[in-house]
């Protein structure tokens, strides 16, 4: 018995040595990515939080002084912050479902190998070749209230011309449209990859069992697409919570603060008003909020799984 025990102990020793050696190599390979992660992700987050605990002292020539949580207290009493928070939540409440649902529909429709499907798929992927800044500029020209192409078409059709980006009621919807135009093809690629990983046998057996299209989608496609869907949901939410370029290029938070998302409010504080502590406080809150939303999303989808 003791021999057997000794034997098993030696085996586990050899195994754990091998395991440790392998683990060390794995960690070595991970170092560059970990370094990148620490420098470009973790450090800015920590810096952002620490910076939010300081304020600019103008009596000391603009130097920073430690004020604890004062910036947070100031921000919570600032109506402009609450307004931006409201706009950010409204924006995300619409833009995320719109992007994911359309990306999913397109992915299902374009999940084929015949020539026409491939051509249409390529057409849908074209926006990916245009940066968000360029896309925003082009959309700005198209949506110009006087000279824009869209209003020219409306005028030709005898329809009333629209103010688009100059109207507080339409500007946020225009931003949702632009963000979706840029985002949908991108998220569609991930979902397409997920769809192509589903074994065709499932569909064949469903067909034999007499399942209709909706049943196939609901009972086979959707459950097997859950993992890429979770990724797309989380990544899309993060991207839209931190959306900046279209606001910067087209509306600068206006008209009448209707597109003043929190990210733009942080930018304004930092680079226009030179109030970096306020900007860092906003980004810290934004990150915390994003973390909560993403955790809820993951939890909900995992629960069903």
């Amino acid at each position: 018995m003791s021999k057997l025990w000794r034997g098993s102990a030696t085996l586990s020793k050899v195994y754990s040595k091998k395991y440790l050696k392998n683990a060390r190599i794995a960690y070595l390979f991970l170092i560059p990515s970990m370094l990148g992660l620490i420098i470009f992700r973790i450090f800015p987050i920590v810096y952002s939080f620490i910076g939010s605990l300081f304020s600019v002292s103008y009596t000391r020539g603009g130097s920073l002084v430690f004020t604890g949580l004062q910036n947070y207290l100031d921000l919570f009493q600032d109506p402009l912050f609450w307004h931006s928070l409201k706009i950010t939540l409204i924006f995300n409440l619409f833009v995320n479902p719109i992007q994911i649902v359309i990306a999913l529909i397109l992915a299902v429709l374009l999940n084929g190998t015949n020539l026409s499907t491939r051509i249409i798929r390529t057409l849908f992927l074209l926006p990916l070749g245009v940066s968000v800044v360029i896309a925003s500029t082009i959309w700005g020209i198209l949506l110009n209230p006087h000279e824009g192409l869209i209003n020219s078409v409306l005028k030709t059709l005898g329809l009333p011309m629209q103010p688009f980006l100059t109207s507080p009621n339409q500007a946020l919807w225009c931003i949702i449209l632009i963000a979706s135009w840029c985002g949908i093809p991108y998220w569609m690629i991930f979902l397409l990859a997920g769809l192509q990983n589903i074994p065709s046998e499932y569909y064949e057996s469903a067909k034999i069992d007499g399942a209709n299209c909706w049943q196939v989608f609901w009972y086979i496609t959707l459950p097997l697409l859950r993992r890429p869907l979770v990724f797309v949901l989380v990544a899309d939410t993060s991207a839209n919570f931190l959306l900046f370029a279209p606001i910067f290029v087209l509306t600068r938070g206006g008209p009448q603060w209707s597109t003043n998302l929190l990210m733009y409010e942080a930018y304004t504080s930092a680079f226009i008003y030179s109030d970096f502590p306020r900007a860092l406080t906003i980004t810290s809150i934004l990150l915390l909020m994003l973390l909560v939303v993403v955790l809820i999303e993951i939890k909900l989808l995992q629960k069903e799984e």
Partner: protein
Amino acid sequence: MKRKILMGLLLGLLLIGTLVNAEKIVVFFGDWMQSNFELYKQVNGYDLLEKFKEETGIEIEPVYYPFRELFQAIEVRMQAKSSEPDVFEVDSPLSVSYYVRGYTQPLDAYFSKEEIEEIKKKMFPATIEIATWDGKLLNLPFENSSQVMFINKDMFKKAGIEPPEMDVNKRWTWKQVVDAALKIQEAYRKEGKEVWGLLFGQVSRPYQMLPLPQSLGGGSGVSPDGYHVWGYLNNEKWKKAFDWWYKACNVWKIVPKGVTPEETTYLFLSGKVAMFIQGTWDIPTVVQAEKNGELQFEWGLAPHPYFKEGKPVTPTNSWHLAVNPYSKKKELGVKFLKFMARDDIIADWFRAIGQIVANREAMMKVLETDPKYKEFPWTVYKKIVVYELQNTAVPRPKTPLYLEWEDLVTKAFEDVRNGADPSATLDNYARILERMAAKYRKYKEGK
């Protein structure tokens, strides 16, 4: 022995390297300065920055930024307390704001009292006023500005209206401008064409819009001490001016929406605008377009309009040069400032670029001696601009809050242009700004 010689050589090279480096300063300019320097060389036959190097042995390394990015670059560098740039261009109303943040080195220590008196005597008063705070000279005025009204005479002819003249005594009121704009638009509408009666070159920016409330006696929008906004930005005169602006854009519809300041000059050049309020810096642009055969209409210049119940007020001030307090080469930076403010340099600058300069004496000398200024459109300097700079030019508010104030007042004008209620908009922005001013009031109280 060989090793010693080698070491000596290396040390010598290092020393030369250090010396060469010490004689070089970095200057942040707006990107328009790049073409200005080229134009300067073409007209005057010598390179301005090269001349400075020849005279002083100091090399200038210019770094050019677009308008908005220049502000951001300054913010980022100064926040980091970077020793570069050594010198940078300052939009003059930001002088105080930069000073309280510790971004600029007051110049009094680098100039004798006589030199400062001499500078003050030479410059247009508004340029010195905006650059002074607590009795300190914060930067050196370099350029200046004034606004006139560009006229598309063909559009006036079509509507059967006599256009305004290049005469400050026959200055149009805003009512005359609106009446003419409506008639012109109507004349074109009959032919199914859409044109605009009025356009502001720097639309919604306080620099250009401020004369509206100021002409009515509404003041600058900030308290005289620079620390309060409530009651100053939203007083009755400001509300009246905003009401006029609302009507111009939304009731009379003589001003286009959705046009940015970057697009306005092209809109005027395209022949779709009857009256264009713009800085004299666009005169060379229009002249060039005419020379190239791109201008399809006859044009003219007239004084900036005003409200009849008030007084004429025109925008002024422009770019100054400041020294970075964290620079390790402040003395060299100051030398560059002095060089750029010199009479002969500034006279050549005005002659070449056409941009009004802060140095009144140098500018007047050129106007008196150069025959070019006896011909249209350059006659505008003598007939309108000099008068405006000496009589109607009012600087923007001098306040540590200027960064926030400018951005939010721009948004207020923009919101009203897009249909927001003028009175409620002003109240709302005044409230936000008053709240923002609190941190500067702490500075005033020494907290």
